[in-house]
């Protein structure tokens, strides 16, 4: 079984606030699921290449251009920067506002 300390550490990495009760719940649940996925250890994977995508994926580049009003997208499409900014709970002078890091 994974420890309470480990659950807390993972929650911190995931930036996920947990209650005390949840920490205990995840201890049990995650341990159960991890035991189940241990099953993969039975499989011989020597000389097997990993698959990240089922199709061949290639990097696609676009020019890095500064745009202010609308984000122009390929295929004559655009997204209004205004629409994106309107979704934010707090903005100041056209920037997103957050809490201080420290």
């Amino acid at each position: 079984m994974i420890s309470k300390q480990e659950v807390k550490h993972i929650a911190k990495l995931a930036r996920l606030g947990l209650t005390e009760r949840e920490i205990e719940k995840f201890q049990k649940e995650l341990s159960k699921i991890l035991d189940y996925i241990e099953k993969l250890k039975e499989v011989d994977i020597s000389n097997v290449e990993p698959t990240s995508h089922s199709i061949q994926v290639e990097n696609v580049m676009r020019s890095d251009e500064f745009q202010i009003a609308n984000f122009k997208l390929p295929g004559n499409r655009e997204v209004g920067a205004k629409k994106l900014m309107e979704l934010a709970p707090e903005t100041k002078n056209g920037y997103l506002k957050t809490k201080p890091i420290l």
Partner: protein
Amino acid sequence: MELGNLTISKTHQGLIKKEFSALEVCQAYLEKLKKKDKKINAFLTVTENLAIAQAKKVDEMLQINREVPLLAGIPMAVKDNILVEDVKCTAGSKILENYIAPYDATCIKKLKEAGAIILGKTNPDEFAMGSSTENSAFFPTKNPHDTERVPGGSSGGSAAAVAANLSVFALGSDTGGSIRQPASFCGIVGLKPTYGAVSRYGLIAFASSLDQIGPMTKTVEDCQIVFDIIKGKDELDSTSVESNLKSEILNLKSLKIGIPKEYFVKGIDPGVEKVIKEAIKKYEEIGAKIEEISLPHTEYALPCYYIIAPSEASANLARYDSIKYGEIKNKKLKIKNLFDYYLIAREEGFGPEVRRRIMLGTYVLSAGYYEAYYLRAQKVRTLIRDDFNKAFQKVDIIFTPVSPTPAFKLGEKIDDPLSMYLSDVCTMPVNLAGLPAISIPCGNVSTVKSQKHAPYRNEVSGAGSKVSLPIGLQIIGKPFEEEKIFEVARLFEPFANIH
């Protein structure tokens, strides 16, 4: 206006013959939705104004032109993890409760251009994580065949909307079975296209190497019509692919159907097994060759999926910080710094299953575990894909059940994640291999209504009476052979008068 049997082509015929206008069809559906959806809870948002404006445009088009696109004036529903510009898109989550989509998903843009009418957004499991739609942060959707039961998930709202005739067709998304399993539970047709066949631009990402958008319809013909519109390469999704694969004309006499023996072992409901085997026999009777095959790594697909999907999900869901959109609801809290803001925003915003998967994904990707879990899972994924490749050297197409059971009861599996995950055991190998697969209704099983497990005890009536639950047959093809899947699926329709 009788909406019960309206398919895409029937509605289209009615529109061009002026039996009804697009506005009349649209209003008939909106009215029905208002009356009937209280019982089913398929919709989260009804886009009445958008639908009426779209319908009026189609009627103008119909006045000028004799010919309009097949989808013009056809009402549709959209799973609430696919963006429709200026319409709320929640992904079934509190963290996106008030999120207004700033643009159209590519598939929506294409469907709008084809004239389809958007009736509303349907209920999913939160971020498409689940197999019952009970993980929606808002309410569970009910199965129209028996409202004590789940519609399946995560595209349960879309499946229930089509099955209850609240929409002609719907869009869903499928990461481990989320189109096919609810299609099976609700007795409709659902296609998970080949990975890359349909653009994912504007789909709220769950597990990016597995997610696909696909049609959920009443007939195979409708499914093909919608797929033909939404498929294709999109510059805004670098994993999308243009496929010009033309399948050769199907010759029944030489059609070889593979039946993987691993899909008919422990855990399968005897009623389901019987219905699937009868369906296979029908194909044999009309001339196809049936061959038993083996996909030896099948038993590892589920644990493999439960490493890969949560890993990708934990990375994809890192973006939800309630800074760019969303907000912290508890205004009384004194929040000192950014770190605490993240913790609180995400604690408030995410439900239990999403938290479970973020935790699992973060754990298996964390320092020291990457090789033991994630890399190993990616290698097992290669073996699962190789199994299918080898099988397709011997057979043209593969038949399996969609899910080991018919629709289960609300509340029955919600507290046992592993048993819930097993509901997708026949569908998730297909996502890992990136293959196309369809679910078509192929029969029913009868079961007795009981009060056991029913969470709404006082609502339950008719205990002891029989209900008939639909069962789906899964037809799996080679990459980009959707056309062949449609042809093979259509062969069953003469036998499928089961509604």
